[in-house]
């Protein structure tokens, strides 16, 4: 074992750019009268999202994986538009673009839908040094047609699986029957292994109007077929942001939380308590709004051309 490595992994040049980026966020939102807020990093409740795991803390309580629930409680209490850049924590997420602790830029806009919020994301990123022109916007369905060559809303799980194999992509080992039969499992693989890496090679690209089965906390629009009013932003093949035209229906939100808890229990995952305070706030009334969470570290990587997330974080998990 060598001596403990105490040095930062990011250069001071990068750390200065990081400080400048956070400052740009502050100026941008101040100009637009969006209020900067701070919410607890540790909460009685946690996300029950199937694929996001929270750190439990000693003595009860969970570290936030996003400030979303607390910010929505502020919105329901009448805050008007709000933003913050805060540390968030996600267990077991570590890799080239992942560190278990990272900085999330998150903001909410009463009166916006997901499309108008995409305009504002674009304006912010231009201000941060992203290209002025050439931004792309694809519907989820179209991004499959263009980059994968088929309509994802017409393909069942078996077809999605077969096509992935034909594409030469090795499917994960040890799949359960549920996973094999679940179209969303295969759509996720398509997005993360095939389509996502091709998106936004020069300029950022949005994907919007997701399958209703991947609504998360977005409202579902009664199209043919119904779609979730949700978007993601990609740049250099890396997912940077996820936004919703927010679900405001308390009963529907509770139903989704409970379904996710059941899934977690059935799959042997930890089952944290869902955020009952959020449900109460939705019952009191969340103004119609759109919100987005954007990975600030990843944004900085793309602006500076850094290949790994540790290039933009002073002390990543291995040195924290």
């Amino acid at each position: 074992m060598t001596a403990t490595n105490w040095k930062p992994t990011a250069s001071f040049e990068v750390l200065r750019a990081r400080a400048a980026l956070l400052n740009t966020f502050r100026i941008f939102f101040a100009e637009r009268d969006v209020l900067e807020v701070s919410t607890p990093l540790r909460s009685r409740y946690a996300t029950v999202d199937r694929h996001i795991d929270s750190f439990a803390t000693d003595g009860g309580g969970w570290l936030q994986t996003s400030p979303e629930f607390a910010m929505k409680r502020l919105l329901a209490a009448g805050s008007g538009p709000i933003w913050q850049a805060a540390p968030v924590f996600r267990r077991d997420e570590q890799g080239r673009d992942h560190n278990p602790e990272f900085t999330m830029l998150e903001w909410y806009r009463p009166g916006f839908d997901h499309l108008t919020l995409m305009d504002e994301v674009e304006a912010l990123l231009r201000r941060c040094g992203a290209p002025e022109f050439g931004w792309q916007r694809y519907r989820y369905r179209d991004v499959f047609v263009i980059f994968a060559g088929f309509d994802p809303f017409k393909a069942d799980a078996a077809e999605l699986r077969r096509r992935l194999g034909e594409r030469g992509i090795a499917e994960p080992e040890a799949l359960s029957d549920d996973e094999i039969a679940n179209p969303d499992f295969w759509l996720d693989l398509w997005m993360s292994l095939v389509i996502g890496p091709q998106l936004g090679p020069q300029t950022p690209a949005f994907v919007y109007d997701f399958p209703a089965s991947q609504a998360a906390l977005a409202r579902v629009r009664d199209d043919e077929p119904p779609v979730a009013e949700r978007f993601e932003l990609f740049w250099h093949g890396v997912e940077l942001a996820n936004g919703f035209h927010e679900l405001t229906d308390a009963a529907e939100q509770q139903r989704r939380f409970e379904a996710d808890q059941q899934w977690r229990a059935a799959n042997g995952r930890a089952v944290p308590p869902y955020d009952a305070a959020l449900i109460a706030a939705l019952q009191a009334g969340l103004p119609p709004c759109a919100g987005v969470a954007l990975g600030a570290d990843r944004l900085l990587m793309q602006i500076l051309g850094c290949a790994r997330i540790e290039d933009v974080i002073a002390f990543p998990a291995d040195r924290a």
Partner: protein
Amino acid sequence: MASISTNEMKSGTKVLIDGDPYAVIDNEYRKPGKGQATNTLKIRNLKTGRVLEKTLKSGDSWEAADVEDTDMQYLYNDGEFWTFMDPTSFEQVQAGKEAMAEAAQWLKGEETVRVTLWNEVPLIVYAPNTVELTITETDPGLRGDTATGGTKPATLETGAVVKVPLFINEGEKIKVDTRTGEYLSRVGK
């Protein structure tokens, strides 16, 4: 047997798949914000050297392979097995032909070599990167010819055959790169 989860698999981690030991070369974690995370692992089969790619769902695991690299001293070859000794414990192990593969032709005895042990049996023996060996047989040297760049085969004391410059003579000691099998230099007398 211990198992190793995807987030513990680093470059160099040894795992057991279908009864064969593999070394992890690269581990790429991918996760859509709201979806299933996967790890794409580039792995090398330690028996065949073949490199392949496999994908796991994040959090899944493989069995750990009891594989370790250790420096050992080469003692002797009895015609079937090559015997090595751990210089600290003095324990001896025997390597068969497969494990010796490339290394056998460069070893004459007493060298310290890197041995990969699997369940305490040598899996691969690596010759030192360079060795100094005496030429036992080659055509007579062309005196003074140090410029034309021609080569000729020469047999070394271990039986290995390498190409040497024309001016090199029988009985001389030369330095050879075992990774490429190339002559490097004469060893000064």
